[in-house]
């Protein structure tokens, strides 16, 4: 289903990131309130949550930028609280702001970060050239970054986190503030990076982003994990697939309801003014085919018929609504 993931090695034991009972307080605010989170190895994990849920605080803790008040945190199998220096050799961070220097060229920015990762001069040049290719900025590599678009800056920032070939890539809201087209371009870049097997933890407030990029989604709110699983598993928690029909003629509504009722796992829901009837089903595609066949056998004219799957939005709203 997602071809770019196939090159991932099967998860080898230790999770990429493992947090147990993490807490962090700022005054009266509990940014992390006993967060438990596992980002499996060999996967893209999305941490999804509204503003103020604790996403950035968590990423900062993983990146060893701040020390949690309590709890345990292992990154790439290393105890991040006891040995933050070793964690820094395994991670690459791209934050919410594009931390690139506008006065330098794209290449100079990458060389600088490569040097900070520990590359010598030559290796830093090579790493920068390779990453410029990878993020498709070779043609603009020797122009100052101040002439770059917002999307190009984010791509460069993403590239900067890669020049040290980190095991784990941390992306804190990588597409916040980008227009939809640029966002999709950045998604393509992230997918391309993921395809070479780097573990990725990304935070986002966009459900679509989590759905598009992640194999594993962790929903957090108020500094706690409230759900996790694959996008499909999470959607299953929001409810079943629905077969939904809109009839051309309101008089047919009762007939169609009678046809749908035996297919459903629950009672059909009727929306009379909308000339619509929907029924929750198990095995959505099979029941949809049944419905289409029975309705056309009776010669009923339809405006529309379809299978509606729950979206992550519904999961999110259900869960965060309940937790609030």
């Amino acid at each position, binding site marked *: *289903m*997602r*071809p*770019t993931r196939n090159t991932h090695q099967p998860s080898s034991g230790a999770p990429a990131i493992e947090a147990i009972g993490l807490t962090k307080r700022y005054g009266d605010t509990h940014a992390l309130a006993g967060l438990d989170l596992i980002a499996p190895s060999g996967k893209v994990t999305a941490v999804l949550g509204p503003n103020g849920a604790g996403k950035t605080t968590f990423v900062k803790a993983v*990146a*060893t*930028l701040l020390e949690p008040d309590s709890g345990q945190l292992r990154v790439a199998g290393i105890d991040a609280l006891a040995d933050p*220096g070793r964690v*820094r*050799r395994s991670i*690459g*961070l791209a*934050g*919410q*702001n*594009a*931390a690139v*220097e506008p*006065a*330098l060229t794209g290449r*100079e920015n990458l060389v*600088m*970060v490569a*040097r*900070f*990762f*520990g*590359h010598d001069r030559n*290796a830093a040049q*090579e*790493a920068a050239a*390779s*990453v410029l*290719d*990878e993020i*498709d900025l070779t043609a603009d590599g020797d122009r*100052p970054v101040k002439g770059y678009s917002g999307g190009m800056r984010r791509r460069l920032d993403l590239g*900067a986190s*890669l020049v*040290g*070939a980190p*095991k784990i890539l*941390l992306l804190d809201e990588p597409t916040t503030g980008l227009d939809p087209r640029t966002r999709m371009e950045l*998604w*393509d*870049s992230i*997918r*391309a990076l993921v395809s070479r097997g780097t573990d990725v933890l990304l935070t986002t407030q966009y459900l*679509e982003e989590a*759905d598009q990029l992640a194999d594993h989604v962790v929903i957090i709110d108020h500094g706690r994990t409230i759900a996790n699983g694959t*996008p499909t598993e999470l959607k299953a928690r929001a409810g079943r697939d629905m077969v*939904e029909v*809109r009839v051309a003629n309101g008089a047919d509504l009762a007939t169609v309801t009678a046809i749908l009722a035996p297919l459903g796992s629950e009672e059909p829901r009727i929306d009379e003014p909308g000339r619509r009837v929907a029924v929750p089903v198990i095995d959505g595609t099979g029941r949809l085919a049944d419905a289409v066949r029975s309705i056309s056998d009776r010669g009923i004219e339809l405006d*529309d*018929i*379809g*299978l*509606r*799957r729950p*979206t992550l939005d519904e999961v999110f709203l259900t869960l965060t609504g309940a937790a609030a």
Partner: protein
Amino acid sequence: MNTIIDHPTAVASTAVESAPITAPRRTIITAPVDPPTVFATATTYAARTVRKFMRTPQLLVVSSLTSIMFLLIFRYVFGGAIQTGGIAYVDFLIPALAAVSGLFAGGAVGVAEDADSGMFDRLRSLPIPRSAVLLGRSMADTALIMWGTFVSIAVGFIVGFRVHTGIGSVLAALALCVLFAAAFSWLMIFLGLVSGTAQAAQGISFAVFPLIFVSSAYVPVRSMPGWMQPIADNQPVTAMVGAVRALVLGGDTQALLGHSTTWLVSHSIVWSLIIGGSFATLASRRFSKL
């Protein structure tokens, strides 16, 4: 709810398949074995900071013009009203400007920008010796301060400043200016880290004004009110400008400065070490807890 068929996974896989195939990578990057040394980290960051300054004409021009304007105003507007005994005011002024240019430079603003832009977050996530970042910053800022010092001295010569001693004393004076610049760079780094944003840093930089003006930098301490004189006499800037003056103007100044050259030089060195050492410690502590 309006869309009847909503099949996000299908959408996702289409998007993946239509994604452009990225150009083949030329080399596979391997992770470096060892983290960078303190020296490599400091020089890399220093080079970047100096490059940024050189490529930002506004910074280069504005900072130079500001110090030239200050120099000319004091030389021609206030200078005539300030009694400096047997020394020409321009000879009194230029060594002082050379000594304190670190307090006028915008070091705090640059540091605050790096804190604000996420640059420091990135740096702190990298396997570098953290203290080396600030060391690099101090090296770069010291170089930039010395640029300002050279501008002041050059313009000083044009408007009548003359050295009254030999080359040895002048080199010693310049060496002291580098030491003061390094010490003040740490003060500015600390202020930049504390303020967090460029604007706040701009404001907080004015906090050093009393240090500059309640000293013998622009006027002799004896012209100040009695209660202020002990403060002005015993603060670091007075010792620093006194040392540079004594070195470039020679023994005639001893009466005006109130201390021997040796006393001034040794005191200015001790003050620099105290300022540099304490703010380097405070700044490093602050940096690790940003």
